[in-house]
């Protein structure tokens, strides 16, 4: 089955990405995770994302484009990146989610992808 893993981080992790005492450890942990999951051969796609302050949201209401600064949800945890992986079942997906560096701080959402049309 194919699952998307959505990695969520808190503001603290986003600020740690640059100029901070823990910056090196932060990137080190992500690099190790990405290397690990890539080497396992299950990755079908994925990217890391810039912080929520760079996000722009668009809705069309009454035929009008409504463009807004910022992400959709004003939540404590924000989307930081994602992978699409091919594994046997949700337990395998959960096991990979649990290894993500953001799991102890933010969290990971696991979603099956739609089957090919």
């Amino acid at each position, binding site marked *: *089955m194919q*699952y998307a893993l959505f990695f969520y981080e808190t503001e603290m992790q986003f600020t740690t990405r640059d100029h901070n005492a823990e910056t090196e450890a932060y990137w080190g942990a992500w690099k190790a995770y990405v290397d690990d999951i890539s080497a396992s051969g299950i990755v079908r796609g994925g990217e890391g994302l810039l912080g929520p302050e760079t996000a722009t949201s668009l809705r069309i209401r009454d035929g009008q484009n409504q463009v807004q600064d910022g992400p959709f949800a004003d939540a404590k945890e924000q989307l930081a990146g994602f992978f699409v992986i091919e594994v*046997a*079942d*949700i*337990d395998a997906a*959960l096991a990979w989610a649990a290894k993500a560096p953001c799991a102890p701080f933010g969290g990971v959402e696991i979603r*099956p992808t739609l*089957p090919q*049309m």
Partner: protein
Amino acid sequence: MATGRVEQAVRESYGRLVAILSARGRDIEAAEDGLADAIVAALEQWPEQGIPERPEAWLLAVARRRLIDRTRRSATDAALSRSLALLTDLVGEVDLAAPRFPDERLKLLFVCAHPAIDPGIHAPLMLQSVLGLNAARIAAAFVVSPDAMGRRLTRAKVKIRDAGIGFELPETHELPGRLEPVLAAIYATFNSGWDGAHNDLQRHDLAAEALWLGRTLTERMPQEPEAFGLLALMLHLDARKDARRARDGAYVPLSKQDAALWSRTRLAEAETTLARAAAFGQPGRYQFEAAIQSAHVGHRLTGAPDRATIAALYEKLFRSAPRLGVAVSRAAATAEAHGVRAGLALLAEIDAARVETYQPFWAVRADLLSRTDAHGEAIEAYDRAIRLATDPAVRSYLTERRARLLS
């Protein structure tokens, strides 16, 4: 006669057949529909053609054919053709000529109580897919409307199918996290049967189903001390069920129960089971609870003053599982062992916001206060406990205690 035979065959094999039918496609609902069709066919054909030699194999074969027919009829897109391929694959995988099918029920138990499924639906899901109870009956036991229960069950089954929850037994290293929800759901099933009104047969049946599930679990996972702990706990509670109500249905607390009404067979089995659990040397929540029940019973049967042991066990239980119910029982046990004041002090430690609508807290507080000079406060606590009580027998017991305080 054939109707009885269909019922019997279904009763004995329902969970196994659902487990086998849904294992590959992960679609419990479709499996149940296919099995329902097979049952209807059996009711039509068995009276005329006679009961097949192996009713279970017959039901499985028919259910599987129906399942494939249904999938084929609705196989309009690629996703459905894929499940059709899986189903076709499945036919012949289980040898119908074999005297016994592999028992897949345990896998189904773990699927129903998977952490990715809402914990509130774990027990109802088990009752429906493993034991074949209908949504209306489950709804009655869990005090929700049949419609709401039906919807929640359907939603959970859709999630199992679409989220790809594997029909595999958890690996040993995953077991600690995976076993607990299974135990909790079995215990919830037991309690929803046990806390019911005295003469509500349906509810009593649920307790029996839970015992059966508990036994199955210990048979299939003989290395899990907490599985034995849970079974021992349920057996202890079940042993006393006839003594729990007076002839008129009134609630009888443990200390006033007629020990002659306790089932000695059940108690003996409970003790043997607890001993098996203890032999592992890995205590846990259910073993502590069973040990507390055992100490209560031992105290009543031998007259040995075991209050300190009971209080100490509650202390241990509270440390391993600091739940609200345990905190309240621990205060009650401490009061018996070390005095009312010690018990009240422990009650005072519990967060007031958590107990606002928690009936046992107010019942215990009322009882403890009534043994001090603070009768006014005791009356207040009784009033709240009475208002919160859902069981009429418990309510009248509390009302009677309150009245005694006023006289």
